[in-house]
């Protein structure tokens, strides 16, 4: 075994452990020099990224990789804590680490005047470790633990500017939502554990019978994680906390929200994958409830899109406006899942007896669109939040009413804002359009109204950001004091995101076939996920 193989074999544990170790070392390193903290945090996240790229290559070529803690062989699968990394986990981990990397670069100048920066980087690294743990773990109780780590550290980060009343209020709302959501997740885990004596997702998935208690557990898991992902009408914490956090934290929060969304995916496709992606005729009795839940998700997703954009249209606080746009974007992702859940059909022979259940092809297309959109949402919304952060840093203004003519001073930021605007509104040729096209076409086949609402939502999103562009960047030069050029580190941070957006916009097909399709297949291929643990996949 070469040294590289050893690295790859231990990568799942190291990717979570390195940010964790870094989180506590930052405090010691920070005593050396003022800038040592941020350099150290950057190095930590870069090292994590290196291991992640190694692991990405391995998982995309060799399939699922598991990692068992404490002992090399898998003797007691029920008791052992293990990580299970498939293409979907990698997909999410790539999004999270890239966003956190960008947040650290951005914070170089943005946070330089704050005290307690060592705590800031500790919490950011803990947040990273929590998110990566959430996406890598193969054990549902560990999922809860990492969910709580993510929730606690992000709530503390939201309230980082503790001298501002709104920031503390937002932090309190976030921790309340996060604590209640996580406790209900734990309750559902206990329901599952009480029935099947197992905590491993693969073992549970294999033995789940879809009894009455299982249905309750499913609903609780789904709703609590959807709340943490910001689905309408449980989205209200999201604009509150996104808008009041410092800009680098907001980027981290976007990633944390998406990690909760990953939890929803894991619950539906892996934990309950036998019921949802199964096409066995024995599942006929569950079809009504699964389809109905899909329709309910679609309904909430459509409302999320409409309410998100309509509320965004009247906001004057720039970051709050972007946060409402993020609510709409999350609606698009849930629309993808809901369409997949509802796109099941029963084939009936002439005597009226069911012969087969199948998932219609547009269902899988909608799921692909949703997962593609996950990536686009993270990067588009992330870029817009960074632009808002730059504007706040340079002018110390939140309200759009007091902003005007910024394009005269900040040319780079203006260009990045236009890129983000077009991407988030789904304007071709940027990445947002490719994923939304998938969603439009697939949802239209389920019900034309869905496609129409999705398109209307996109158009309104464009209107929302054109308003921002007009109000903040165009017009006379009102702000004469204090306006200076944006620092170079912020341009680099925005440039990374903008470059990814443009590249994916130009090569949507390559990204779809090399990243989105493996991730979707990993979700849909329920048996390979369970077999990797149950039949010694090490």
């Amino acid at each position, binding site marked *: 075994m070469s040294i590289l193989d050893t690295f790859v074999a231990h990568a799942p544990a190291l990717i979570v452990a390195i940010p964790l170790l870094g989180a506590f070392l930052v405090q010691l390193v920070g005593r050396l020099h003022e800038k040592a903290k941020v350099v150290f945090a950057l190095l930590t996240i870069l090292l994590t990224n290196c291991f992640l790229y190694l692991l990405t290559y391995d998982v995309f070529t060799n399939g699922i990789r598991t990692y068992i803690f404490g002992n090399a062989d898998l003797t007691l699968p029920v008791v052992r804590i293990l990580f299970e990394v498939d293409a979907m986990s990698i997909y999410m981990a790539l999004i999270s680490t890239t966003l956190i990397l960008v947040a650290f670069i951005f914070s170089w100048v943005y946070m330089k005047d704050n005290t307690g920066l060592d705590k800031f980087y500790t919490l950011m690294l803990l947040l990273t470790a929590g998110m990566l743990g959430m996406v890598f773990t193969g054990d549902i109780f560990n999922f809860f633990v990492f969910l709580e780590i993510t929730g606690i550290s992000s709530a503390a980060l939201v309230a980082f500017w503790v001298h501002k009343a709104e920031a*503390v209020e937002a932090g309190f709302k976030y*921790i309340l939502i996060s604590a209640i959501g996580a406790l209900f997740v734990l309750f559902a885990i*206990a329901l599952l554990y009480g029935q099947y004596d197992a905590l491993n997702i693969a073992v549970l998935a294999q033995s789940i019978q879809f009894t009455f208690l299982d249905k309750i557990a499913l609903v609780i898991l789904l709703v609590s994680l959807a709340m943490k992902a910001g689905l309408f009408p449980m989205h209200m914490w999201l604009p509150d906390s996104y808008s009041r956090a410092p800009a680098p934290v907001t980027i981290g929060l976007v990633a944390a929200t998406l990690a909760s969304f990953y939890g929803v995916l894991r619950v539906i496709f892996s934990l309950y994958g036998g019921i949802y992606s199964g096409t066995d005729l024995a599942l006929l009795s569950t079809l009504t409830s699964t389809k109905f839940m899909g329709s309910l998700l679609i309904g909430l997703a459509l409302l999320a899109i409409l309410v998100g954009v309509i509320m965004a249209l009247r906001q004057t606080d720039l970051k709050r406006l972007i946060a409402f746009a993020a609510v709409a974007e999350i609606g698009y992702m849930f629309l993808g899942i809901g369409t997949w859940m509802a796109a099941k059909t029963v084939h009936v022979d002439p005597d009226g007896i069911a012969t087969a259940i199948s998932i219609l092809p547009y269902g899988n297309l909608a799921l692909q669109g949703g997962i593609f959109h996950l990536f686009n949402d993270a990067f588009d919304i992330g870029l817009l939040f960074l632009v808002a952060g730059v504007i706040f840093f340079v002018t110390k203004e939140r309200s759009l009413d007091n902003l005007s003519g910024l394009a005269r001073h900040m040319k780079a930021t203006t260009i990045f804002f236009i890129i983000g605007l077009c991407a988030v509104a789904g304007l071709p040729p940027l990445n947002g359009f490719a994923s939304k096209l998938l969603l439009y076409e697939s949802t239209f086949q389920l019900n034309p109204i869905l496609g129409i609402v999705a398109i209307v939502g996109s158009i309104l999103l464009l209107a929302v950001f054109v308003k921002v562009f007009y109000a903040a960047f165009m017009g006379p030069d009102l702000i004469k004091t204090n306006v200076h050029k944006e620092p170079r580190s912020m341009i680099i941070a925005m440039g990374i995101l903008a470059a990814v957006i443009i590249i994916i916009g130009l090569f949507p097909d390559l990204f779809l076939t090399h990243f989105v399709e493996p991730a979707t297949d990993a979700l849909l291929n329920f048996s390979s996920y369970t077999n990797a643990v149950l039949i010694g996949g090490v």
Partner: protein
Amino acid sequence: MIYNIPYLVVVGLILIGLFAVMFKRNLIKIVIGVTLIESGVNLFLITLGFRKDGVAPIFTGLPEGVNYPADMALPVPQALTLTSIVIGVAVLALMLSMIIHLYRHHNTLDVSKIRRLKE
């Protein structure tokens, strides 16, 4: 029947906690509600590990005439509960310190008056 009482208590605790979180206006009472939900969930986990006439799951302290795994209370739920308690302490501490700051900024503990972020 008597073994079902803990489950009823669990449901009762969670419902009382939710009621407190939803309808009480004092921030401290809301935090107490969260703690009640947490206690309910913890009680549920512990109850799942119960075995009639079981002994404490200490491998080296096993009394004479007790079968090794069969007569022990399940240790896994206890480990889970412990983890959840630890997390609960962290959440509680964070919530209370935020309440201290909220009180400083708003001079009130009424949750319906602390809503600068709305609409």
